[in-house]
């Protein structure tokens, strides 16, 4: 009995073992796939894997390959002496996870993700140290690519070449690398003399570099003899060189060391097919960086500097025609990077000077301006100090006596922030103030709004519309009003209104002190009642006294011009009237707008619009000079009077007066022989020695 019992137990145990073994055999016992793959036994073994055979047609023959997929947790593969383990199984990695073999048992392809333990993997005899979470790609034609997880920080690794030896391509998005570098999206290789960007975008030293193959060289790398595309930046110089069939695009970000960029600067360059560029820092000379263009037979270089697009191609420099600016462009970005460019091309002998305000000039070898863009008579300078003024805060520092800010109580919506101020507006404000030496003394405030016009406001304030300096915002009816394109003229116009107000205020003081009973009574009445003292005083004064007030003198000229227009029988009048040019052509008065208000109110005593004064003064000096010398006696007479009024009233200095009237116009060096000939009220108080007083 005992013998039979023992036999039954042994059979039971054997059966149990035989039943259990199949359940656990796959984990414990590796599978030898070699025979199935037509290889010598023991060549390819593993567990947790699934073998798939693939036959493809290549030419006339069938090609067989085998893929082993990692399907179980802990799946492991041994290929001869090499082990592939710590691999995330396929369902978990969410991508095909496999190693592919050819008929000879060589690995020809692989795609797998390494788990949290990391691992070492051998491909073609090269051992790859894979970081946890890396995805490994291998292709026998292109080699190994290691894709690290997005946002991986590799800066703590002192020597990345341990993990990414040469020929291993690092792939990923937003990968932080040593040497102030970030792989935004793409593939690169780590080489002895730098990082080779295979393709994609990389951020380095405040540059976004996009290329299909460029070496980002170490700053001390020796590139002599290097025949590939490269970029290299030192503390004082940035160089880049493309090769045939290759392109490099660089977008400069804020705080670039050589170009000294800020948040509003916008500069992108593109070189291809053999062209190169070198940027040299010149701050020690107080100058903006110099850019040397290196031309090539088939190359092309494009420089996108804010909205200016320069192109060097086939020995020519071209620029794209102006594009209509969108409002958003103007609000967000209106700033170019100040640089000076020269080319080694034999046909481009000129220098290109670009300032921070989207202006450029082409200069001859003798620094003579040949072609300018949007100059408006403003300087296009290579000095750093001339390009630095870009914010309202800087204006406040430079002119502490003046207030700068957003217009208050404006009839236009206040939808402008200080951060929206374009640098050009700051630049033009500064130049306007510099060209009017007494402006700081005569003004209290300059305010800005989000509109086209400009205004002279009470309390010595000038209000400037932001769009006033945007050349794209030309109103369609400007020809009938006036030339609104040159920003300096617009400032001059409004400033002239301010000066007229100052003169009128001073005149009132003088008139009050005449002790005329009628005028005195008026001033007394004004203390208790709301009356327009200026208007009422002007009327009385004009009737009783021979020396008219300044605004009355302007009114007289305007009314006289209107009468001449009404009386003219010149046949040209009917032709010109259709274009509103008749006013200027027949009388010399700047624009129809100059007389617009006078048509309604031909009252010389108290019309206060004074657009004639401001539109005259905003014209360029050469235009006024021409009109003084016009063959049309009416024009000549009017402009002589207008010039004299501005000079007599103290609004115009002697230099401008002589420039318009001619150096020989006065006998006296201080023009005392001419002074006060047209306007005497305040002039003779100020200059009693004038022969006209």
């Amino acid at each position, binding site marked *: 009995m005992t013998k039979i019992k023992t036999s039954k137990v042994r059979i039971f145990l054997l059966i149990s073992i035989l039943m259990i073994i199949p359940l656990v055999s796959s984990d414990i016992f590796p599978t030898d796939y070699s025979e199935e793959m037509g290889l010598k036994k023991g060549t390819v073994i593993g567990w947790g894997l699934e073998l798939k055979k693939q036959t493809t047609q290549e030419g006339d023959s069938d090609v067989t390959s085998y893929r082993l997929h990692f399907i179980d947790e802990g799946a492991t593969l041994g290929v001869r002496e090499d082990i592939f383990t710590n691999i995330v199984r396929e369902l978990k990695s969410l991508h095909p996870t496999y190693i592919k073999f050819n008929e000879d048992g060589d690995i020809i392809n692989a795609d797998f993700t390494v788990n949290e333990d990391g691992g070492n993997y051998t491909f073609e005899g090269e051992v790859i140290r894979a970081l946890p979470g890396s995805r490994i790609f291998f292709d026998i034609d292109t080699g190994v690519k290691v894709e690290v997880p997005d946002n991986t920080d590799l800066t703590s690794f002192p020597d990345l070449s341990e993990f990414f030896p040469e020929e291993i391509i690092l792939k990923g998005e937003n990968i932080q690398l040593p040497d102030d570098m970030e792989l935004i999206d793409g593939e690169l290789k780590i080489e002895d003399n730098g990082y080779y960007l295979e393709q994609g975008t990389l951020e380095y030293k405040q540059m976004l570099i996009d290329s299909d193959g460029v070496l980002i060289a170490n700053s001390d790398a020796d590139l002599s003899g290097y025949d590939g595309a490269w970029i290299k930046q030192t503390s004082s110089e940035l160089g880049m060189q493309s090769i045939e069939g290759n392109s490099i695009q660089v977008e400069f970000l804020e705080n670039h060391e050589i170009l000294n960029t800020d948040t509003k600067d916008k500069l992108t360059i593109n070189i291809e097919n053999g062209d190169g560029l070198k940027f040299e820092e010149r701050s020690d000379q107080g100058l903006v960086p110099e850019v040397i263009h290196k031309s090539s037979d088939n190359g092309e270089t494009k420089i996108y500097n804010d909205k200016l697009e320069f*192109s060097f191609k086939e020995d020519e420099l071209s620029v794209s025609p102006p594009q*209509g600016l969108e409002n958003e462009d103007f609000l967000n970005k209106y700033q170019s990077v100040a640089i000076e460019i020269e080319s080694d091309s034999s046909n481009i002998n000129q220098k290109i000077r670009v300032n921070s305000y989207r202006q450029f000039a082409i200069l*001859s070898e003798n620094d003579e301006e040949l072609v300018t863009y949007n100059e408006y008579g403003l300087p296009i300078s290579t000095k750093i100090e001339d390009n630095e003024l870009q914010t309202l805060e800087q204006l406040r520092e430079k002119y502490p006596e003046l207030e700068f800010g957003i217009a208050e109580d404006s009839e236009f919506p206040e939808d402008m922030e200080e951060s929206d101020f374009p640098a050009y507006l700051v630049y033009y404000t500064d130049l306007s103030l510099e060209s009017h030496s007494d402006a700081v003394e005569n003004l209290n405030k300059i305010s800005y709004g989000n509109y086209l016009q400009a205004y002279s406001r009470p309390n010595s304030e000038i209000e400037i519309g932001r769009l006033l300096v945007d050349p794209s915002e030309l109103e369609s009816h400007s020809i009938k009003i006036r030339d609104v394109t040159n920003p300096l003229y617009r400032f001059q116009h409004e400033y002239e209104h301010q000066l007229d107000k100052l003169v009128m205020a001073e005149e009132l003081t003088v008139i009050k002190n005449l002790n005329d009973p009628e005028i005195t009574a008026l001033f007394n009445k004004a203390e208790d009642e709301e009356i327009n003292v200026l208007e009422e005083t002007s009327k009385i004064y004009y009737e009783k006294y021979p020396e008219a007030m300044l605004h009355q003198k302007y009114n007289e000229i305007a009314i006289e011009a209107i009468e001449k227009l009404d009386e003219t029988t*010149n046949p040209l009048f009917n032709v010109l009237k259709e274009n509103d*040019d008749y006013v200027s052509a027949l009388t010399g008065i700047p624009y129809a707008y100059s007389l617009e208000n006078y048509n309604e109110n031909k009252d010389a005593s108290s019309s206060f619009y004074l657009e004639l004064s401001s539109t005259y003064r905003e014209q360029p000096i*050469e235009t006024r*000079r*021409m009109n003084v010398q016009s*063959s049309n*006696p009416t024009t000549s007479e009017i402009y002589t009077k207008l010039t004299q009024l501005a000079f007599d009233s103290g609004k115009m200095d002697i230099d401008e007066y002589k420039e318009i009237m001619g150096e020989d116009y006065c006998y006296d060096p201080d023009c005392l022989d001419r002074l006060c000939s047209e306007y005497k009220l305040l002039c003779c108080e100020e200059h009693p020695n004038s022969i006209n007083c």
Partner: protein
Amino acid sequence: MKKRGQVTIFIIIAIIVIGAIVTFFTFQDQIKSLFTSQEDSIYLFVETCIKDVGQDAIYLTSQKGGYFISPELSTSKGIAYYYINGENNLPSQKIIEEQISFYIKNMLSLCTQNFSDFPDFEISQEQVDVETDIKNEEIMFDVKYPLTIKKEDSVTRIEDFENIKIPIRLGIIYNTAKEIIQNQLTRDDLCISCISNIALENDLKIDLTAEDEDLLFTITDENSLIKNVPLKFSFANKYP
């Protein structure tokens, strides 16, 4: 005695008459030249006016691309388009000459002011006709301005004021504009190196001003002074 007295009177009268005749014939050239020099001064006066008005004409038409009356295809400021979306709109030199002539013809009388500077003369004027010829280094005017000049019993007629020259390089400037347009017609972008080479060759300066989709070209010539002001010639290009 009475007879002798009458004879004396007749002799005196005869002497006076003979004296007057001799005086007249002796000084007739001076008398004529006195009258002629005043005629010359009227001629010079008109010539000066032609030059003056001519300069104004050149100055004003140059501001609008050679037009005094802006053409239909011009910017909102009345500056003629020379290039519009790939098409050539350059005016011929003849058109510009006609525009200058037009201005002079209509504005000359404002300068002469009915010859009020010559009160001793009665001067009547007829219709003015002007021919303008733009050359490289100068502009020449031939003006027909028929004037009948009367003084006392003398009547003189002058009408031809020919070969009046103004040293302005409008021909060079026009050809520069033409070259720029011809270059533009071959491409979509703007060849800045080409334009600056043209400027350098002709000793000119060219300013470009962007206005929306227009580009204004202003050619300044420091060698062409109008009343001591360098001539500025403007035209516009419109891009798609």
